């Protein structure tokens, strides 16, 4: 268990990091879900594992007996699961709505909030063409207009 848990957390974080970097937004969302699971397992591991005694106070006793499991991480993880589920559901609905609106779930197809070339009042300096392409000298006006 002591080896398995950190390994599981590590694999989950690695997979989450990979998925979060995708331009495909549903993948990113899955990445978030995996990352949340890794965080929950971390809290679980933080409460110390290894004992199977339930944290129940025996009738008549004043305190838990020694070696009882730690109930606090369970409560924290439960809260975190509920919150994470709510957030993931909202993100999924938002994604669905965006898909209906844009017809795509790739982040590069949604450029509405920050259009790539904002029309600013003083003419934006024309982006210089990539140097690799041989450029006719002097650049014909037609090319400039295209750019």
């Amino acid at each position, binding site marked *: 268990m002591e080896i398995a848990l950190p390994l599981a957390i590590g694999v989950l974080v690695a997979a989450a990091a990979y998925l979060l970097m995708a331009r495909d937004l549903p993948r990113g969302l899955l990445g978030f879900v995996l990352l949340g699971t890794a965080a929950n397992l971390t809290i679980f591991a933080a409460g*110390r594992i290894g004992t199977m005694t339930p944290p129940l106070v025996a009738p008549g006793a004043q305190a838990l007996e020694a070696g009882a499991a730690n109930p606090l991480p369970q409560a924290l993880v439960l809260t975190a699961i509920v919150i994470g589920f709510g*957030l993931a559901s909202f993100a999924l609905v938002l994604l669905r709505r965006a898909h209906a609106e844009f017809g795509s779930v790739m982040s590069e197809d949604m450029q509405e909030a920050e259009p790539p070339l904002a029309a600013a009042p003083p003419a934006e300096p024309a982006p210089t063409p990539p140097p690799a392409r041989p450029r006719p000298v002097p650049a014909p006006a037609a090319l400039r207009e295209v750019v």
Partner: protein
Amino acid sequence: MRQILLVAPILIPLAACAITALLWQRPEVQRRIGVAAAALLFLSTLALLAEVVTGGMVVGQMGNWPAPFGITLVVDPLSAAMLVITGLMALAVAVYAMGPGAAERDRAGFQPLFHALVMGVAGAFSTGDLFNLYVWFEVMLIASFGLLVLDRTREQLDGGLRYVMLNLVGTTFFLLAVGLVYGLTGTLNLADLARVAPQVENQGALAAAAVLLLISFGAKAAVFPLFNWLPAAYHTASMPVAAIFAALLTKVGVYAIIRVFTLVFAHDQALFGPIIGVVAMLTMVVGVLGAAAHYDVRRILSFHIISQIGYMLVGVALMTPLALAGAVLYIVHHIVVKANLFLVAGAMQKVGGSFALAKLGGLWATRPLLGLMFLIPALSLAGIPPLSGFWGKLVVIRSGFEAEAWLLASVALAVGLLTLYSMVKIWNEAFWKAAPAEAAAHQPAPGEWGRMQRFATFAPIVALCAVTLTIGLWTEPFAAFSLAAAEALLDREAYIAAVLGTAPVQLAEAVR
């Protein structure tokens, strides 16, 4: 009485949220309840502030569980100031939201979400527990998601998705850090953490957890290099929403950084001070340069939120009483000014027809009073005396020079100049330039620019201008309070004693 005042800032918005949600079909009634609740919240936070100033820190154990076990609410001078300013902003925006567009907004559920957001913010400012802080962050976050995409336009969906994804990752980092901190210390109560943290054997692992916390709070506060979600999203929101976001959301992140790094990780200041200092510097510069590149009022203002966050972090980077006092004064001033600028931008769009500077013009000739109301917060943001921003900047920069952080202080000075450039750009384009044909022809639709709407738009703007002028012209009490708040922040023993009592209950040592 103190206990009631302590929970009121959370309970009042909670009640308002529930009642307005139940009155879903009656937007008119919702709106009135919303304003009344915000006014009540403001009054209760003022009473709480008076209580803190006269009687010291207010501490409450929810459900009477003794300190490190249950949920603790703690309001020290910094928290009290933040709560008052939250109340003021809630009131200003609630009134402003009665202006143009109110009907559509309220049909989409603005009121319940707005009060849920305020509740999350108030909870984050008053909690004394790390996991509880996480929960309040999430309350705030889910409400802000809903508010951001209120109009469901394509622009908002795009900006909203970016905002949602980046913030989800940020808060998951927070959760991860909470797990690590709990594993290392066996406690999540901030006061207990402050007591235990210096004794932890594995300081390296604790520092790693602290860095995770810094990342998640930094993402919330929109510091360099985690700020990208802010300019992608804020300018798409409807104006009252953008104003309350600009006022409160990033500042909760700054507050969390100040709270956690002055209280829990103060013993590691030699490690985190320089990191936060560099971050603060880059945040200031990148934000102000981003603003210089834009020609949409909302986008310029959004980038300025980022750059101003840097000033607030200078306090945590230097950790001297004067620097922290500067941070407190700066946060209070900035919230008022920045929210006001967004409100003014909304009014400019109503009377001028656009947010784009190219399509605006001639407003000084037709609306001189609006121009004056833009100038007060704009010049205050840039730090022109005698407005509030001057004093905030003065204290921050002076503390930088006193701590011999020459580079940090010089950058702060230069960024102030560039801020002035951006504000002058808006002024020249929107107010002084001759109006372009379509702007000159623009008339607000009479149906949505009646007497009531004009009052709802301008009353909060005038009130916030008055607050800016008050802080600027009568700085003494504000500065004195900021210094007291800074000293309370640095007096960790007093905080620990106030929360845990003089003989702190020992947490089950077996856990550690």
